[in-house]
């Protein structure tokens, strides 16, 4: 017992001298390393006073101080972490914060709306329909899916957008979440990986969970899916191969079987590349100018 107690106390003693991290990486962009590590810095990495940061050209780094201040580095060069710590301390002083506030207020006289209208136009007198934070090339309010490739070209106003799948139309925890890479289409296969058949809702949202209305997603089992697709395709009259392929694609698209429609659109374009309607319909899947 005495031995255990001694070891415990020794651990406590040495832990008091253990160095706390000076910073945690909040965001990194571009080529950024710290000395002694070949890996690029990534979110969540800890930085200690002994470290030296090396920022490459065009890189950007946001660090969280131990007092939760954020500092930003964006110029190429070497930065000893020990020196960066001072930047955190500057803002923590109550007195300096107070006088900084007073100075900012003193030097920023409040304007008048009637004299500078462009600075006072935040009130919009109209009801909004639709979300202005996320845009998708395709109208995908509803998707029926079992398997197949379906790229969804997107745009989001968020700095770090993620795609998430939920079991509820509102609230609740995401059952699946993937981080989206800028200018890379969202692959539905990746988003619904390992999800069992059922009804889900998905959305592109910010890291903090802010987002627009969730979209409906039904994941089918193989048998039911094939049966539903076959039932739809049964309505398509036989015509020229290209026209038949396009008719199948259109019908499946209208019924939200998008992953199933895409290969038929591709087939229609392949069989008749000169048809502008076929090309326009296919291009909608890859449209980036929206």
């Amino acid at each position, binding site marked *: 017992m005495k031995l255990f107690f001694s070891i415990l106390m020794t651990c406590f003693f040495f832990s008091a001298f253990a160095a706390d991290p000076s910073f945690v990486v909040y965001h990194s962009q571009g080529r950024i390393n710290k000395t002694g590590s070949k890996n690029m810095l990534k979110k969540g990495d800890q930085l200690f006073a002994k470290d030296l940061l090396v920022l490459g050209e065009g890189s950007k780094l946001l660090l969280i101080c131990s007092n939760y201040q954020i500092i930003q580095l964006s110029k190429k060069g070497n930065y000893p972490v020990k020196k960066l710590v001072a930047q955190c301390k500057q803002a923590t002083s109550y007195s300096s914060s107070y006088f900084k506030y*007073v100075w900012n*207020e*003193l*030097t*920023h*006289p*409040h304007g008048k*709306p*009637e*004299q500078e*209208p*462009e*600075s*006072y*136009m*935040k*009130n*919009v*007198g*109209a*009801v*909004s*329909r*639709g*979300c*202005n934070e*996320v*845009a*998708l090339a395709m*109208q995908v*309010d509803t998707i029926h899916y079992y398997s197949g490739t379906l790229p969804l070209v997107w745009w989001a106003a968020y700095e770090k957008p993620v795609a998430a799948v939920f079991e509820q139309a509102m609230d609740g925890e995401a059952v699946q979440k993937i981080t989206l890479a800028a200018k890379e289409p969202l692959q539905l296969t990746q988003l619904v990986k390992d999800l069992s058949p059922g009804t889900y809702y998905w959305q592109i949202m910010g890291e903090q969970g802010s987002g627009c209305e969730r979209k409906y997603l039904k994941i089918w089992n193989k048998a039911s899916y094939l049966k539903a697709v076959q039932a739809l395709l049964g309505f398509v009259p036989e015509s020229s191969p290209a026209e038949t392929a396009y008719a199948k694609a259109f019908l499946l698209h209208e019924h939200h079987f998008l992953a199933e429609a895409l290969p038929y659109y591709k087939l229609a374009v392949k069989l008749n590349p000169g048809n502008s309607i076929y090309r326009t319909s296919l291009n909608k899947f890859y449209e980036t100018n*929206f």
Partner: protein
Amino acid sequence: MFKYLFKRDTILATIMVFIVMGLLALIPINTHVLDPIKMALQDFDYNDLAYSQFDKNGHTSVDTNIVVVNIGNADRAGIAGIISELASKKPAVIGVDVLFNEAKAAAPDSLLVQLFSGSDKIVLAYHLQAEKRVLAASGFLWPNAMARGYANFVGEEGGSIRHTAPIMKNKGTVYQSFAAAVAQVAYPVEYKKLVYRNNRTEQLNYTRTANKFLVVDGKEILAGRETSISFTGKTILLGYISPDPNSIEDKHFTPFNKKSVGKTVPDMEGVFIHANIISMIRDHDYVNKSPVWINWLVASVLCWLHMSLFIRFFVDKHLWFHLVAKIAQVVSAVLFVYLGLLFYFKWDVKINLTPTFVAIILAVDVLYFYEAISTWLHKRFGIHSLFIHAHH
């Protein structure tokens, strides 16, 4: 009071008040940094009392030329249906006060594109983004519209809406407000008068509360039911009116709000504010501001009268000087607010009484300063003044 009115010292002290005001105005800083009252009343205007407390324009009758159609929870196909149905009734203009932010479904979006691009009598609202004085329109569908206007009002964020900017120019692009765009179609002559005024902003003359506009439920229109209201030749505004009085969707603060200062809930839907602006343009019922020279002339005369009174008590009855000065300042404040509101209430004229208030408040302090200078001038150069034999 008039004993010292035409004395040299009274006139010089009055002039000194305005010199001090000029010097204070030169300081490029926000001197209200720690003034809680000023901070709390940032979005306060005395003239709001004319609406909220004294029922300005309370006598105005219902506007039968503007009909507001409530879209409720109609989807895009529903909105397109309402617009088509209304267009068939030959109104003067249809203003669609709805922001379409993104593409939704091909069929209804195509219907709306067809409607907006096919008629210059259908005006679509859009959002004008203003960041660091750079303006840019945003949203979906608005580029297709033949007639369009931004739905933004001018005012503190989340504050009372008192102004509108009919036309904004930025980097060679001209943007028109939604209400101005609607007025241009429905009342082209009156619109020209608005443009001729050439004001960057117009103070809103609210003539009607929401219940003084004709409102029709969009569902009735969509169902093809006959209403008792004729739409022919009228200005139709499509907007959202929530059935829940506590809803804040597209609701804004206006001077009609009974609670002028502090925490309260917004009181008027955006579509009714646009309706008020349109009716103001149509009736040429603008709020006119008194010329700057009149504001300063009034300030000079009133400051001069006060200075005469203050000097009278300063020199002859100094014991009562501070008491009289404070009473005079309070009485004057009440009286001037009354007169300012009277002009606004009766004749839609907004008088800026700030210079008058500031001059009267500064007069007492400046008087002490003037006395000190007079004494110094007397000692140094033997210049006589009223204050040389003053005992206090």
